[in-house]
């Protein structure tokens, strides 16, 4: 559980100090920093933002760097990011590599834009998969980095005025090695998510509709072969046309593409996917992940709200943001009000 959090120069927060409970509800008008606060928690635990790929964007305007500092399960986690340098510390010991640090906390981020995972472009589904994979497979991060590096190198060589085939081929080895790893890891992940997603989906809809997940491999059945066969095409298009960077997660509702499903059905699928990750991480780590639920309840109708609340893994720490909390039953949640970058703990929900 995240007991304490300190932010310095993170997005709209100049300085923030907070203590959290098991369930935390953060209310506040628009543009006051609700998403930024959840993002900060995610970055503290996972060193990654759920909304941007470059963390530098989260440094408060005109500042040199941000500091995130938290007490999570009695471990003191600190992360500094500046323009030129980043620093990690665990219990005040500076960490050269992130591997120990990343073993500590796991998180799932629910956003009101999650429906885009269902109907948006494939890269959103790859991001969804990758974010889960980072948390169950400690080698995934470095393999994905190697893959991306080999891919960018190869693409640069393909874009040269006179591409050097021997040099391009030299990058095929590392590209295929990392690519095969990524492909296999994603296939495993999707297979592991399948039963959880199906169950969560049935539970929310209380219907007989079946949600199924499939891995569409951008590198084909045999990536090395596909890559070799695509050499001509790659040279013509001046980019690598096959590989896990073209992977997709195929979603099927009763065997049909959810593209034609209704808005509500699409939202339910997105929810089921997030819940599946929760269940998988809970199973993997032996305890539920921390949940960051950003402005999701407002979008849902009464039934889906309750289904979601009921399905959230028991015993997980929750951070729930909302502009309006009138619908919420007063429970053990700790209430906060966020305005102008200041977080105030409220003893009870204001009338």
């Amino acid at each position, binding site marked *: 559980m995240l007991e304490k959090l300190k932010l310095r120069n993170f997005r709209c927060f100049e300085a923030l100090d907070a203590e959290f409970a098991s369930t935390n509800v953060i209310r506040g008008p628009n543009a006051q920093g609700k998403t930024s606060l959840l993002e900060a928690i995610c970055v503290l635990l996972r060193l990654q933002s759920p909304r941007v790929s470059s963390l530098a964007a989260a440094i408060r305007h005109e500042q040199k760097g941000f500091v995130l500092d938290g007490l999570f399960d009695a471990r003191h986690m600190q992360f500094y990011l500046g323009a030129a340098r980043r620093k990690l510390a665990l219990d005040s010991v500076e960490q050269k590599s992130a591997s120990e640090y990343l073993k500590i906390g796991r998180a799932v981020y629910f956003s009101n834009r999650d429906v885009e995972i269902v109907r948006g472009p494939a890269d959103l589904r790859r991001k969804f998969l990758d974010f889960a994979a980072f948390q169950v497979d400690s080698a995934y991060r*470095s393999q994905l980095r190697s893959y991306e590096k080999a891919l960018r*190198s190869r693409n640069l060589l393909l874009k040269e005025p006179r591409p*050097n085939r*021997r*040099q391009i081929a030299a990058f095929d080895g590392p590209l295929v090695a990392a690519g095969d790893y990524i492909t296999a890891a994603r296939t495993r992940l999707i297979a592991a998510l399948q039963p959880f997603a199906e169950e969560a989906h049935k539970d929310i809809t209380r219907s007989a509709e079946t949600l199924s997940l499939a891995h569409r491999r951008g590198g084909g059945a045999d990536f090395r072969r596909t890559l070799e066969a695509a050499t001509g095409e790659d040279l013509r298009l001046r980019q690598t046309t096959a590989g896990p960077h073209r992977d997709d997660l195929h979603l099927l509702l009763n065997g049909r593409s959810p593209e034609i499903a209704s808005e509500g059905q699409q939202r339910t699928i997105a929810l089921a996917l997030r819940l599946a990750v929760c269940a998988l991480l809970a199973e993997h780590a032996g305890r539920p992940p921390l949940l960051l639920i950003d402005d999701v309840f407002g979008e849902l109708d009464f039934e889906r709200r309750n289904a979601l609340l009921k399905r959230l893994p028991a015993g997980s720490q929750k951070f729930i943001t909302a502009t309006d909390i009138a619908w919420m039953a007063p429970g053990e949640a700790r209430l906060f009000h966020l305005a102008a970058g200041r977080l105030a703990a409220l003893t009870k929900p204001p009338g």
Partner: protein
Amino acid sequence: MGERQIPALHVKRVEYPGAIKALIGQLKRMPGIGPRSAERIALWLVLSRDAKPREIAEAIGESARITPCSKCGFFAEEALCEICRDDSRSPELLCIVEQPTDILPLERTGMFRGLYHSLGGRISPLDHIGPENLRIDALLNRVKTEAPEEIILALGGDVEGEATANYLAELLEQHPVALTRIAQGLPAGAGLESADELTLSRALSGRTKMKMPKFG
């Protein structure tokens, strides 16, 4: 009645004499030395009796004589380095490294008695480094004239190291020489420089074949 205007003061700020300022300026250019360290070192050189600035200046002057060995690229005081001048070493074995600084860690294992060839880097399109920027032609010449029996690739285990190894393997395909790679015991992304002796010894003894010699 208005407030009396205070005339602006033009006081010249006293600074270090020119020689000290110049010294600080030179020290600041060194890696890992910021303005404050530069100032501290400069003052120590000027003030401390143990500093022996002349000896330091002389040592720096001497070091300007160091050039890359014309054969292998290691640090040398003459045309050839100490390793290349040593007759007791086996020219049948040629170990290829990325940087001249990778040679000493391998030497310290005491396991290798052949010769070296430093490429001066590795193929890295992201850094705009291609084969033409590396000492690859010099390597091919050596392979022809020295005819080693085995070439050992001791390159980094990361993407660029792998790619450079693959590139060289293809170039050397037609040469009558066996090609091996040191075992993958090296942390990916970290060059040989950061590997410890034990890891290196293991990597050297557990090298794997990339190709058998081709004769004819």
